[in-house]
């Protein structure tokens, strides 16, 4: 029983250490490596004009509650 628990503990510790060691090999993406993200296919919207139009409609519908962004709303209270 004792041995089993000990082995389990050792295996658990080894697993944690191994996975932590893996983290050190991951390098953060550098600013000059973000070319893929700048491609048009990576946009959230399909068309800039269409997205602005949709945002404008949303703004006018939700004018009192702060619209689609984090800035102040239309009520003048925040």
């Amino acid at each position, binding site marked *: 029983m004792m041995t089993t628990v000990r082995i389990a503990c050792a295996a658990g510790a080894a697993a944690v250490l191994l996975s932590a060691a893996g983290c050190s090999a991951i390098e*953060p993406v*550098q600013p000059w490596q973000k*070319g893929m993200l700048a491609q048009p296919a990576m946009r959230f919207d399909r068309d800039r004009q269409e997205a602005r139009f949709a945002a404008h409609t949303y703004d006018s519908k939700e004018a009192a509650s702060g619209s689609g962004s984090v800035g102040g709303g239309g009520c003048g209270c925040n």
Partner: protein
Amino acid sequence: MQSPLQYRLTVRQVLGFAAGLLAATCISSSAAPPAGSAVPGFELPGVEGAVKLEQYRGKLVYLDFWASWCGPCKRSFPWMSAMQKQYGPAGLQVIAVNLDAKREDANAFLNAMPAGFTVAFDPAGSLARQYGIKGMPSSAVIGRDGRLLFMHTGFNDADRAALEAQLKAGLQQP
């Protein structure tokens, strides 16, 4: 359960790994050299032959880092050309280091946007890493004495006048 000795060893191992992780993090994110420090020389392939920092000793070097996919970089090109034209005779040298992984992307950009200054290529980003670049575009201004004057990240219309004033001031320095 476990003996105290075994437990202590495990803790030590965990701490060792934590220290290792921390060290690895520190190494991978290189910081920008402090202003006033002498910058290390470099040699990169250029459009026509190698581009060495040594060649421009005694000049004020505007070292720009750019990529073909970066919008503000595109806007900065005409400005850098104008600066080179206006202040080149007074001792300014603009060196624009391209960081595209593929040379074709850079060439297509340069065909559409002619550069009136020196262009170098650093596809591996080794020089950008040395300068701890945090955004695109970034620039490092190196004084006539080979020391870093300042670094700048990004480019927008509001930056033009301030950067030009800083370049003018840099040209006055020995």
